[in-house]
């Protein structure tokens, strides 16, 4: 009968294995945690500074900046007015400070994702081997339950903004990498041949042909990254990240219906505003390129 049982490690050995991994990690954290933490210090200072800037700025200034961004992104009065009204309502319901904290984290994490994600996506598009190594890593990052990596992150970096930011980035970076890769791979072979024929260097081909033609896809990636970052706000609040997520958690554990809906809807409002702005911007890029192509 033993044959029919799946092969399994001895209980004691399994326990020892788990223990040794845990202790190994603890030793690592004890020895290198401080060094790792100090690497992230500049990021922390920047985050704190940025959040203070947003929270401290007078509200009309923020509204003005939002309106200008909305106009440059979407070129659509409807989006501009909608964004301003959404922020006014958020402020009116007393969620201004939390919204600014969330806004700071989401913008910084999106920025980090873009800065890291696009080069990685380009590298993946350049080489099939790199793609075959990175794709499974992205799969893991997107599907592993967040708490599994939140605990080691807390052991290494403590609780607060930086670990929250890392958690957000782990979850939010895959779309931009994938879509950059896809966009560049989808660029017409004939266009590349033409570029080769004109004697374009590698750099010229990449920045003059491939990236511009892939921009609509890359923007779809940016858009998705922002959405995923906002979705992670509540999870990251579980390791002490300030903002709307913390209020949602408070509402959930106290069954405060109104508080939960208000803060949840504030996150939705941020998401819709970001989405419309970045999506319309991407669309306009596409139109512009298509127009140029036809001429």
């Amino acid at each position, binding site marked *: 009968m033993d044959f029919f049982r799946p092969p399994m490690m001895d209980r004691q050995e399994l*326990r020892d294995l788990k*223990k040794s991994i845990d202790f190994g990690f*603890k030793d690592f*954290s*004890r020895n290198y*945690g*401080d060094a790792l933490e100090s690497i992230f210090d500049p990021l*922390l200072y920047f985050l*704190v500074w940025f959040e203070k800037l947003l929270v401290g700025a007078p509200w009309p200034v923020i509204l003005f900046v939002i309106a200008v961004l909305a106009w440059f992104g979407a070129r659509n009065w409807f989006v501009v007015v909608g964004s301003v009204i959404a922020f006014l309502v958020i402020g009116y319901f007393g969620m201004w400070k939390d919204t600014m904290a969330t806004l700071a984290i989401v913008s910084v994490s999106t920025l980090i994702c873009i800065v890291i994600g696009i080069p990685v996506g380009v590298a993946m598009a350049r080489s099939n081997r790199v793609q075959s190594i990175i794709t499974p890593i992205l799969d893991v990052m997107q599907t592993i339950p967040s*708490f599994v990596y*939140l*605990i080691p992150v*807390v*052991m*290494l970096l*403590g*609780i*607060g*903004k930086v670990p929250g930011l890392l958690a957000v980035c782990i979850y939010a970076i895959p779309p931009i990498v994938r879509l950059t890769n896809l966009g560049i791979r989808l660029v017409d072979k004939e266009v590349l041949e033409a570029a080769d024929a004109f004697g374009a260097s590698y750099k010229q081909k990449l920045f003059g042909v491939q990236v511009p033609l892939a921009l609509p896809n890359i923007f779809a990636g940016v858009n998705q990254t922002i959405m995923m970052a906002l979705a992670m706000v509540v999870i990251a*609040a*579980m*390791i*002490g*990240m*300030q903002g709307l997520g*913390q*209020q949602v*958690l*408070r*509402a*959930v*554990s*106290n069954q405060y219906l109104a508080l939960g809906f208000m803060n949840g809807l504030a996150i939705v409002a941020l998401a819709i505003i970001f989405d419309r702005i970045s999506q319309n911007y991407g669309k306009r890029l596409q139109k512009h390129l298509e127009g140029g192509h036809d001429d």
Partner: protein
Amino acid sequence: MKRILMGLAAAGMAIFMSQTASAACGSVTIADMNWASASFMANVDKIILNKGYGCDAELVPGDTMPTFTSMNEKGEPGVAPEIWANAFIDPLNAAIAEGRIHTANPAPISGLGEGWWIPPKTAKDHPELKTVLDILNHPELFPYKEDPSKGAFYTCPAGWGCQLTNANLYRAFEMESKGWVLVDPGSAAGLDGSMAKAVERGENWFGYYWSPTAMIGKYNMVPVPFGVDFAGKENWDGCIVKPEQECADPKPSAWTKSEVQSIVTDDFKSKGGAAMEYLAARTYPGPVMNGMLVYMQDNQADGADAAIEFLKSHEDVWTQWVSSDVAAKVKAGL
């Protein structure tokens, strides 16, 4: 007719059972709560009652409020080894006054409760920090990562009752003007993680926790006396535990005493006999309890495993709760 016969049969059974109960305590259910220390205690009680007193004890899963309600209304389960009664002390006292529920042991675990804690290393390095008042004058020893000019006090995650309590004590002790920040760890895992990280690295940490827990046992955390007395029930129940807007003028106060009891139903009290004496005598010393919780966590053991380990390795503790022949019976039964 059938029903009457059934009733008679049941009554006969009851008489028969109560007769055997004089020799043994009969069948009894014990609430097995869904947290580690209570589950462990329930399993120890089960083994000792079964082996030592000839009961037919069974565990039933439970949680504080459902178990209390069921004991009060239905008389089942018979024993709840660890009930944290602070939140519903009035209904509990009412049930005790009515005689439906009895306190078998007013303090089954010694040295338990909520409060503010520091790591043992901090206590050793800074012997001058004797009370919370001393610590509050030294925020620079507990720097807050996001604003190092301030001290960090780790409070409860958003939504826990103790978050309100800590926030009001924060105001009562005027911690803001003394240079402290209330840090919300976001979740139980965040609170544990912040403490574990600090202790593992030998950093200072100052925050809320409670005992008995594996975290306190594992890291030998030191409870800090508040340095002020408990400032009365009115201040605590009428202000400190309430949301900020309902507590205009909180006064500094030590943490309220945690009412943790072993409670039994009237039925168990009347037929339990010697088993009641056991319940009254069994008081776990705090360090032993914390040690068992650490054992459970390190070995991923459940309450039943831990009970056997406890009965084997802490004979000196539990043999004092029972007579020597009961102890011999339990030992033989292991």
